[in-house]
């Protein structure tokens, strides 16, 4: 029988991710798997001193990380009572690279993620992060498309 012990759920806290979350929970419960939430904060832009008078890149990353942790706490809290074990991590870096790296390092059996993120194109059918993860992931990837992104039947 198929072992799915650890599920990775990369999230940017968008409504797309929220929708994919229901799938992560369903698979987690069905297989009794741990669910790992991962949020990746983009590194701050490198600005020259002239532009960076009131800009503290370290503080920006710290604030974003704290926000992400709060959001994850809320999400995990809401899913309490499902008898699942959750892990949380916030990383700084390039989103898809961190997702692949995390999945490899922690031996994820499945990645559940949304096809689109917070930023994106109306016409694009697959977001660039999901596309890269599908191409490079060390394990199967379940991509979930938010109903509003499904194009009507021709």
């Amino acid at each position, binding site marked *: 029988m198929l072992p799915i012990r650890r599920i990775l759920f990369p999230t940017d806290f968008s409504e797309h991710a929220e929708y994919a979350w229901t799938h992560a929970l369903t698979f987690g419960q069905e297989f009794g798997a741990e669910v790992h939430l991962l949020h990746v904060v983009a590194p701050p832009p490198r600005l020259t001193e002239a532009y960076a008078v009131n800009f503290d890149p370290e503080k920006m990353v710290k604030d974003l990380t704290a926000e992400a942790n709060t959001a994850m706490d809320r999400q995990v809290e809401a899913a309490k009572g499902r008898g699942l074990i959750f892990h949380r991590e916030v990383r700084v870096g390039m989103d898809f690279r961190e997702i692949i790296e995390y999945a490899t390092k922690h031996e994820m059996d499945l990645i559940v993620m949304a096809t689109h993120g917070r930023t994106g194109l109306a016409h694009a059918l697959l977001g660039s992060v999901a596309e890269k993860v*599908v191409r490079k992931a060390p394990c199967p990837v379940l991509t979930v498309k938010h109903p509003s992104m499904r194009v009507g039947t021709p």
Partner: protein
Amino acid sequence: MFARILVPLDGSPLAEAILPEVVDLATLHGAEVLLLRVALVHALPGVDQIEAQVRAVEEAEAYLAGLEGQLAAQGLPVRGAVRYGHAVEEILDHAESQRADLIAMSTHGRSGIRRFMLGSVAEAVVRAAPVPVLLLRGRTLAIRQEAGVPAAPRPRPAELAAPSIHHILCPVDFSETSERAMEYAGDLAQRFGADLTVLHVVYDPLDITGSHIPHPPLEQLREEMVREAEHTLHGQVHRALRFLPRAKTAVVAGPPFRQIVRYAREHHVDLIVMGTQGLRGLDRLIMGSTAERVVRTAPCPVVSIRAAA
């Protein structure tokens, strides 16, 4: 809904990188694809201008004919056109005269001094186009520019009920990867108590020849291909999924990804499980892998399983 998608090309692989996205959009919208290549010759003094122009146009026509064939083999209505003149003007004029309702093109997304042809053409088209422009930057869709249409649809708060998985579809191509995907799908079906259909799509010889006139030998060939595939598929499913006697098989003919997506839609599939080969190079640049295209256009979630490294 788009009826005609205009794709300006300059002969570079970068420009062609938009094609997988175009193919998928055209399929979903039932749109016609208009390929356009603008030729312009800056011949050196002393060189025969007319001959250089004729050669440039002929080269452009040959180039488009190749791409037209590839797109037509995917079952898409496609028209190619070569125009002689300045790229931006010709693209805009072609869009208007052919009543295109979307322009899709690549840009390398550089700016400033390193911005060559494609970048500046894309930028000028975006500024002046009367219709939405889908821009693909480098290998990543990253910019949106729309005229006259509403901004990206904000996702509605969806019903966040737990998804129910009653019907799983596993498209296979008899490769090792797809066999792994089949076992994976079988396990999922058992776990969720879901029905499983293992689907194989045979290329339709009628599609490949582009012949839509009744052609008995080809129809016979298709029937034989389908029968052959049914036999192979049945044997494979019986061996690999012995634990799942409910597993069904199905064989259809046509362009693989369109048939997979259509089957999923028509049979109310809740989950697709499929292997991906991880194509490299030109094949991927132009068409993308079947799995990737299913991921893009499927009406339901998709589990993609990569070939073992």
